[in-house]
């Protein structure tokens, strides 16, 4: 359950579990053979357990500005999967290799509230996998080429001062398709991000660190038109589905996550799972992802603008 205690300006989430000690914690969701056949059979016939077709997403809810202390934040719910992303901007020094680019760091944390197994260091492996996959999809190659986020817009004084963006995501509830939800939450958080304007004192020589004055009043909204969305296609049996629940994911043979931007270009690709895929299947998956990305992108854009408009209304009233 979630408790929002407005009177105390603290936001705390609380989760619960009761374990019956056998040989270590027993996962509460264990599927019987009959259930497994049911799920597989449903997918074969294009009717999944919750009634969706293979290429339908679950209902998506977006809320922005949930963490007032951060420069930008968003909470995204896809069915029962819920994630929060926050963007914090700090001034730093650009790297010597790319003096004209700012820096972005993406970090994912899996909360124990989502799964008891994420307690302590249990969720570290999954967190690392998700962080790297997100960086691959959104930040382009090591040279920074092809990044979904324009790093040159983060520069303040070339070679000396740049903005460092720390994108932190928290998985609060896990019911499959974490990567898509995280990608959507980062896109929404960036749309909500306001980076303060910096005035540099002009009289600074080439070697000195210039004086900076961070404005409290003026802000620049981040340009998210190039940020891609991530579509994960999970192969179960002979078909692949989009937006798998954790039940469906437990039967997957392989999954391919493809990030596609507004122009329909593929920005990153990650394949998980042990089963090999025929190359023609992969090409087919990419074209399906490109088609689905248009729908998901327009849906996210409308949700994000609705969420931002709500904040605007709240501020005016």
């Amino acid at each position, binding site marked *: 359950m979630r408790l929002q205690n407005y009177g*105390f300006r603290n936001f705390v989430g*609380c989760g619960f579990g009761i374990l019956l000690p056998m040989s270590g914690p027993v996962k509460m969701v264990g599927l019987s053979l009959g259930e497994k056949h049911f799920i597989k059979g449903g997918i074969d016939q294009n009717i999944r357990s919750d009634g969706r077709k293979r290429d339908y997403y679950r209902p998506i809810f977006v809320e922005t500005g949930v963490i007032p202390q951060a420069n930008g934040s968003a909470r995204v719910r896809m069915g029962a999967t819920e994630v929060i992303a926050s963007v914090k901007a700090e001034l730093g020094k650009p790297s010597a290799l790319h003096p004209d680019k700012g820096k972005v760091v993406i970090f994912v944390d899996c909360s124990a509230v989502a799964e008891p197994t994420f307690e302590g260091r249990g969720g570290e492996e999954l967190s690392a996998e998700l962080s790297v996959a997100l960086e691959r999809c959104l930040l382009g190659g090591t040279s920074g080429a092809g990044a979904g986020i324009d790093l040159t817009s983060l520069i303040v004084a070339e070679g000396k001062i740049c903005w460092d963006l720390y994108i932190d995501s928290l998985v609060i509830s896990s019911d499959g398709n974490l990567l898509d939800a995280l990608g959507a939450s980062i896109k929404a958080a960036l749309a909500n991000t306001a980076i303060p304007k910096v005035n540099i004192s002009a009289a600074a020589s080439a070697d000195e660190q210039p004086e900076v004055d961070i404005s409290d009043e003026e802000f620049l909204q981040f340009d998210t038109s190039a940020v891609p969305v991530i579509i994960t296609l999970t192969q179960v049996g002979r078909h692949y589905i989009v937006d798998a629940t954790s039940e469906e994911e437990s039967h997957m043979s392989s999954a391919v996550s493809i990030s596609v931007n507004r122009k329909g270009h593929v920005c990153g690709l990650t394949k998980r799972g042990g089963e090999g895929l025929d190359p023609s299947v992969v090409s087919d998956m990419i074209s399906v992802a490109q088609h689905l990305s248009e729908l998901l992108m327009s849906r996210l854009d409308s949700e994000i603008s609705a969420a931002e408009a709500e904040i605007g209304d709240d501020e005016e009233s």
Partner: protein
Amino acid sequence: MANFSTGDRKRKPKGDRRSTEISLVIRQTMEACILTHLMPRSQIDIYVQVLQADGGTRSACINAATLALADAGIPMRDLVTSCSSGYLNSTPLLDLNYLEDSAGGPDVTVGFLPKLDRVTLLQMDAKLPVDIVENVMQLAIEGCKAIATYIREVLLENTKQLEYRRGL
């Protein structure tokens, strides 16, 4: 505590000293209150995720844990409520936020069982004159009683909703 919960970004969301200490405090407070003998051979896990910290974090965690336990139907001796108070400018203050907390005055956290009228948790840092301690602690206890009333209202409302959904 989440990475983004504090003003300056934290490096390690888990396993840092502050989180471990708060976890210990919550566990000890709750252990005293839950009727564990009614649930033999079972383990109760309480996971608290702090999304934003602005003073009084451990109080919020304890209050949230109480509500979650009540929501789960775990039998307890009483609702555990918690509140913090401080002393700045010769005035006792209830529920300090982060700025007031960092102003250098004392920070007293009290965990209270309202029905049994007992203090289960008492923590204080910094200095406080001995004759003022009683006042500041009493203020925090009043805060706890107010929270307890509010928690009880919320739980009653929740139960009414459940009854309604069951068609009673």
